[in-house]
């Protein structure tokens, strides 16, 4: 019980750090004006280890926090990240998480899915963003950038969630 509480607190700190980095570091390391989305990393990787409804709730909460900080079109990030977390959680059950290609592919597809969903929802909310040009010139390059950075961020999250299990200990030894 105490272990679980500690895990939740560490997870919340991890989320907070990710938010701060998203507001500061992401813009600094932007390539051709495309910045990585660290929030997607945490949503995707945590969805690997939670059942789909719990994952959607976590994704939605992170999205809501992001919406409140951005202060406009409240709910678009909430819905997009909740849906991405739900789908990733369902999809990831079919694969072994120790394969390094899985987080890369998952982050790539999740970024595309998140971007497409956001663009569709934004139309329903009255925000006009050109769908195809945004998808090709903004979302796709970000998906590639996120996929490149995914392994770097996967390792700490992977160890954090699995280190208590025998499988985690074995994988930690293999990876480090």
């Amino acid at each position, binding site marked *: 019980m105490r272990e679980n509480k500690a895990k939740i607190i560490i997870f919340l700190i991890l989320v907070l750090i990710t938010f701060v980095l998203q*507001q500061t570091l992401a813009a*600094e390391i932007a390539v051709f*004006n495309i*910045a990585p989305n660290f929030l997607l990393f945490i949503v995707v990787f945590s969805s690997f280890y939670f059942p789909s409804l719990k994952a959607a709730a976590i994704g939605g909460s992170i999205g809501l926090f992001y919406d409140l900080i*951005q202060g406009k079109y409240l709910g678009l990030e909430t819905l997009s990240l909740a849906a991405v977390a739900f789908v990733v959680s369902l999809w990831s059950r079919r694969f072994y998480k120790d394969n390094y290609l899985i987080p890369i592919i998952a982050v790539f597809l999740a970024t595309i899915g998140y971007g497409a969903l956001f663009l569709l*929802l934004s139309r*329903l*909310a009255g925000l006009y963003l050109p769908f195809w040009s945004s998808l090709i010139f903004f979302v796709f390059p*970000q998906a590639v950038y996120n996929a490149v950075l995914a392994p770097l961020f996967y390792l700490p999250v992977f160890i954090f969630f699995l280190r208590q299990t025998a499988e985690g200990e074995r994988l930690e030894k293999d990876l480090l």
Partner: protein
Amino acid sequence: MTDKQRKRLMIFLCIILVLIILFVAASTAMERGHLSFLEKGLRDVMAPLTSGSSIALEKIGAIPKYFVGIKKLSEENENLKTTISQLETKLNSYEDALRENVELRDLLELKNEIVDWSPIATKVIGRSSSLWYNTITIKGGSKKGFEANMICVTAEGLVGRITAVSAYTSEVRLITDRSSGIGALVQVSNSPGVVSGLGRANELKMVHIPGDARLVKDQVVVTSGLGEIFPAGLRIGYIGEVKPESNGLMLSATIKPFVDFDRLDSLLVLTKIPAGMYQEEGK
């Protein structure tokens, strides 16, 4: 209740929830000068964290620049010395022109009005890395006297305007944001148009320029003062490629902004716009 009924109820509730969220999203779409209590609180709590992180990143980024920069500095020093001597020559001629201007104004009995913008310098503490919005967060909010719609500039030119304030932070919508639109003029030819953002840091677009306008590459674009937000005469950027619009009657042009938005770390907030800086429609 059977499993099937429960499943249907869940789907129904999910649809209702999505509709409610979309309704909230649509109703918060418009610019809100005043944020909710929760949003203000979150921004003020996050402000010291993002500010600290920005300072730390700035210091870390300065380390490699210091070593790489020494060689460049000596070259730059030589170039600057040449530029200074050229500028001194220019300054002499400008001083002559200024003296002449003062004399002529006296002759015409024009009043010398001192333009007071009451600028307040502040630091950028956060940048939106979102794909959808181009905004920055600056240090200082309502406690410092900042209000929505105040204009932000640097020595190079126009940055954007404040769209929301909390007690200790303000959000600035950059001119590169896709929803930004500014009444503008091309200097010399005085051709009007509207400058809007493309979501990219180094490019803007000017549309609705009269088809007979004589536009030349590198001409300077400034704010026209039309509308009630941006005063006249603020430098925006210079003209790049010019193309006819799809209706064939008007022109559009790409604009390279003067401000380097990638390296923007401090700016001035103009807390007071002097009278007579706006133009009336049709003038």
